[in-house]
């Protein structure tokens, strides 16, 4: 269950920030400057890419779900 939440939460947060970047358009792409509050949105977007790597990758979480929860065969 915790694997599912970690997997889903990480992927959802990445999608959420992709959407924010898309909605923000060229303003969200500014790395420096007042209008972008120092590239706030872009920096947050990049940070989310680590969500599916840190604390056990999404691939590891999926393996756990497949093997422990669904009891699918294999190593």
């Amino acid at each position, binding site marked *: 269950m915790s694997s599912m939440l970690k997997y889903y939460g990480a992927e959802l947060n990445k999608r959420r920030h992709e959407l924010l*970047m*898309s909605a*923000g*358009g*060229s*303003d*969200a*792409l*500014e*790395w*420096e*400057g007042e209008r972008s509050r120092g*590239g706030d949105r*872009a920096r947050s*977007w*990049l940070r989310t*890419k*680590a969500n*599916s*790597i*840190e604390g056990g*990758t*999404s*691939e590891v979480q*999926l393996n756990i779900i497949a093997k422990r929860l669904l009891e699918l065969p294999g190593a």
Partner: protein
Amino acid sequence: MALVLDEQQAMLQESARNFLADKAPVAHLRKLRDGRDADGFSRDLWKEFAEMGFTGVLVPEEHGGLGLGHVEAGTIMEEIGRNLTPSPFLSTAIVGVSALLRANGERKGELLPKIAAGDLLMALAVDERAKHGPRQVALSAKRSGNGFALSGTKTFVVDGHVADVLIVAARTAGAPGETDGLTLFLVDPKTTGLEVKRAVMVDSHNAARLTFDHVQVDADAVLGEVDAGWAVLEGVLNVGRGAVAAELVGCGEEAFGRTVSYLKERKQFGRAIGEFQALQHRAAHLYSEIEITRAAVLKALQQLDQKPESAEPFVAIAKARAGKTATLAVQEAVQMHGGIGMTDAIDIGLFMKRVRVAEELFGDANFHADRLARLKQY
């Protein structure tokens, strides 16, 4: 027409590939970024672009260029994408030249040879809001003296802060949202009342914000016809979109190639991570996406050369697919590289940043899917 490069195009691609890998690999972008270079690109490299003939790739031979087409220009864009090379090639040699080719005789004859020689930079100022919307142009151009006075703002003007001549889309009639009443002007960025501010972007490439406060231009600054700038603007934008799609193919393919190498090298749980079938399938899927996108982009570039009047749907497909495919490629690249992909120590993150900006430039995948749906009357 076969969806492959002919012999001459393949030769040009090879020379662009060798030249850019040698003179402007990703380390070149890093150096400009880390040195906080005021221009954001290398003028020495631009001189070499001119010596290679790249600056004049689309310039007709009678004006000192190579007189080649969009497929050829696309091969150079693809290599630029592969190396993340910052240069005014898109804004000047592709978009700028395409606009001048649609201009009146005098300015054309004056400016094209300068571009081919590497002595003149241009930039296209269209968007005023955060999302691409050429119909939404509101910047006003009112008749004044023997010309016009321009007032309003522009954003995401690629290479705007280094351009010697700006191409500005302005409204001489009608309301934002309408295609009639648009006029293109060639504007000297040093004109009184015009403020040009560089914006440092996430990908360390150039863009600028412009503010026009009663900027006075002469009547001969008009590019094309007054009130009838839309057709020219769309033609120029389509050329730019095709070129950016080619750049995205280069970015995506390079990020993918580096990832496949990493899958073969990186050992975890006692074996190469590329042995895991879950990753093999994702890599195989991505390979397929890239190949189909490459074909769609080449098709669009061929149409721009042979039947520009009917290129629009092909360009929409190409830009939409290229944005989606390159985005998938860089996202998979970061994830499959794991923790190291997040760091600035390797180049993968730089590809993700560039792809995000190129996806937004001249309309994202949603914009182009919408355009295609409307064109086909879905």
